[in-house]
């Protein structure tokens, strides 16, 4: 990056200095195509992640009549989230929180083990940028050809190559935005409605936004997203340490560097022949030989480029490699290189936390009941004194039936021996318990009035709902107000 320095030593009376250019123009980066094992891994990860993104909404999953048959669906209309055999109701939104925590911890763990591999391989910005560069290369050729084309005057050749690239980019961007929308509605319906104009306005709107952001971020912003917009490089420093594997230039082996003729020997010089291949393939435009840098996304394409060159000059590969700071320092000092430490306090901590939260969530999912009750207490009025002096509180019971069958349930109260209740809409009269119908796959609301004799001092009562057939039950302890 260009650093701006303002000259403050200027003397009054002298002719004014030229205005400093406060805003450096972006230096266009022309990453060269690398060949090697890491490039292959990147192609594979790209293929898999893109395939997952584009194909998943089309996977069907039979859930029975009246329920969406899409394997992965965030259904806002029915307020449910479907993920294969898992079904999340609004009452269980904590699973989403758990999922986010797991994702964050996994990112921490991977970072403490392997540095920024997420950035280099799996981050959507990386994947789509890589795809876009691939398209660019298909139209405009590799690094040298692209640079030549950019500097050439406008011609038919330049025009059709540029236009073709942008058209394909836009098609990919549109396809990406369109696929996003499919996660929120039944995919075949939206896809068909899209072309007949029957899809909801929000579908067009969001597809438009995603089309724009994909085109803009992956096409023109590229590494600037990673360098200037993404918060992750800032956080990452706190998560990694000198034991983490980072893409590292082994200066202990490479220096002093310099071009080398075939006739010369290797004595008295380093292995780096200063061929600049590592710089040319770098998608963020840095020189890894300057050490670990904020811009580096650890994609390891420089390793591929360097290894290729090392083979050509018949030196061992791995001048640039995934290595730890401690290993490099040890080699430089000539002491034995310590073994890579997989087990460190932070990796153990992250792993344990992941295991803990993961098993909690799995336990929760496995023991998930099909019956849940939420109780909302009337707040206005908080309580009512009846003509006889007895105290009445009003509640709204929400009975959640997650099974696809209508059920009969019994509502009862505990914790107040003389309390009686009344349910609006059921046959009149006060009793200790009521049998109510609960519709299939939904939430039924009942309004319940509880009367406690004035002689009894009750602060809390417990509602219990029990499925008459299976005995499954849920209870909820709530406040009872008497004004005392």
């Amino acid at each position: 990056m260009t650093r701006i320095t303002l000259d403050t030593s200027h003397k009054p009376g002298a002719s004014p200095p030229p205005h400093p250019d406060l805003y450096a123009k972006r230096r266009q980066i022309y990453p060269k195509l690398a060949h090697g094992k890491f490039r292959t891994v990147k192609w594979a990860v790209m293929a898999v992640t893109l395939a997952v993104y584009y194909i998943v909404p089309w996977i069907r999953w039979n859930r029975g009549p009246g329920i969406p048959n899409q394997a992965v669906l965030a259904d806002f209309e029915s307020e449910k989230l479907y993920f294969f055999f898992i079904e999340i109701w609004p009452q269980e939104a904590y699973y989403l929180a758990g999922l986010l925590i797991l994702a964050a911890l996994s990112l921490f763990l991977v970072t403490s083990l392997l540095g920024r591999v997420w950035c280099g391989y799996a981050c959507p910005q990386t994947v789509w940028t890589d795809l876009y560069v691939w398209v660019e290369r298909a139209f405009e050729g590799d690094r040298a050809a692209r640079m030549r084309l950019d500097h050439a005057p406008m011609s038919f050749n330049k025009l059709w190559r540029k236009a073709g690239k942008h058209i394909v980019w836009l098609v990919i961007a549109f396809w990406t935005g369109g696929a996003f929308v499919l996660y929120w509605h039944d995919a075949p319906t939206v896809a068909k409605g899209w072309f007949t104009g029957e899809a909801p306005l929000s579908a067009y709107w969001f597809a438009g936004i995603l089309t724009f952001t994909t085109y803009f971020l992956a096409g023109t912003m590229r590494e600037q997203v990673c360098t200037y917009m993404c918060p992750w490089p800032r956080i990452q420093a706190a998560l990694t340490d000198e034991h983490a594997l980072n893409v590292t230039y082994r200066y202990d082996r490479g220096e002093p560097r310099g071009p080398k003729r075939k006739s010369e020997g290797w004595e008295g010089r380093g292995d780096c022949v200063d061929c600049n291949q590592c710089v040319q393939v770098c998608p963020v435009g840095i020189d890894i030989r300057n050490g670990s840098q904020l811009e580096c996304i650890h994609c390891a394409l420089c390793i591929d480029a360097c290894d290729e060159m090392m083979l050509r000059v018949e030196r061992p590969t791995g001048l640039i490699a995934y290595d730890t700071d401690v290993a490099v320092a040890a080699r430089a000092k000539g002491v034995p290189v310590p073994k890579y430490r997989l087990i460190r306090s932070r990796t153990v901590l992250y792993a344990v936390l992941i295991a803990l939260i993961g098993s909690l969530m799995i336990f929760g999912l496995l023991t998930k009941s099909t019956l849940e009750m939420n109780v909302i207490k009337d707040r206005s009025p908080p309580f009512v004194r009846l003509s006889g002096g007895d105290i009445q509180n009003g509640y709204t019971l929400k009975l959640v039936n997650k099974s696809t069958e209508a059920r009969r349930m019994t509502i009862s109260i505990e914790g107040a021996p003389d309390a009686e209740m009344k349910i609006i809409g059921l046959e009149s009269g006060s009793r200790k318990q009521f049998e109510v119908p609960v519709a299939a796959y939904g939430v039924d609301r009942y309004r319940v009035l509880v009367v406690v004799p004035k002689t009894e001092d009750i602060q809390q009562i417990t509602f219990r709902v029990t499925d008459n057939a299976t005995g499954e039950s849920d209870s909820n302890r709530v406040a009872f107000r008497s004004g005392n």
Partner: protein
Amino acid sequence: MSSEKDNVDPHSGVETTGHSWDGIQELNNPLPRWWLYVWYITIVISIVYMVLMPAIPALPGMGTNTTGLRNQSDRDNVAIEMGKLDAARQVKAEDLLKASLQDIEQDRDLQQFSLAMGESLFESNCATCHGTGGRGAKGYPVLADDIWLWDGTLSGIETTLHHGIRHTSDELTRNSAMPRFGRDKLLSSAEIDDLVQYVLNFSGRSDSQAAVQRGQSLFASQCAVCHGDGGKGNRTIGAPNLTDEDWLYGGEEADIYTTIFNARNSHMPAWTDRLDDASIKALAVYVHSLGGGE
């Protein structure tokens, strides 16, 4: 303005405005170009907006404000949206009209609809006096308890909603009037004091048995017609029960004195003019569900 040379800042070579404050001068830098362009764009947008949308308010002699080429009107849009909402509600409203109040309350679907509709109607029409959730206030009955001046059944509540209480322009309104015993000189102040003690005695709170004795015959001749011999009240004419713990206008000695002296005849409007029959049905079901429905 002095010569241009004097107005050039020697440090930056930029022209100054020529103003000096305590030796500090202001540079006459041009506006940032991007800023200027944004400003030009907003001017263009405002002109386009004025042509398309209602923008210029009516000036004297102009009659109406400019309507704009798009004929946009928030009023009309709201009316259209409300019309759509009404049409959607109409289907359910017809079901409500067909069913009896009891059936509405028993039918899960209609009940949920009525409770939701009734709640919003209650909050916008009734809560001003009766409080949210019908919690009541002094002079405004609590609707969540089991004490009813008139009738707490579903149809009783519906009748009250339709015709109001002491609503002057409705012949079927619920009507009753307590005489203004003090103000109209029907009773002396001492007699009212005795009556107050007699009424307090219903809830065991009197402090003068002699006054209670004196009040007994007064009550029998003046009050028992409506409130009953035992003070239990009479719901067919809306006469409150004087023996329970509930006091609409306060149960302290001074409150009761004021009530007998001035009488209290509050009003509730008839809602037939403001709400359609389906809305009143939904409201009746909602009020019935608040806690004291009979």
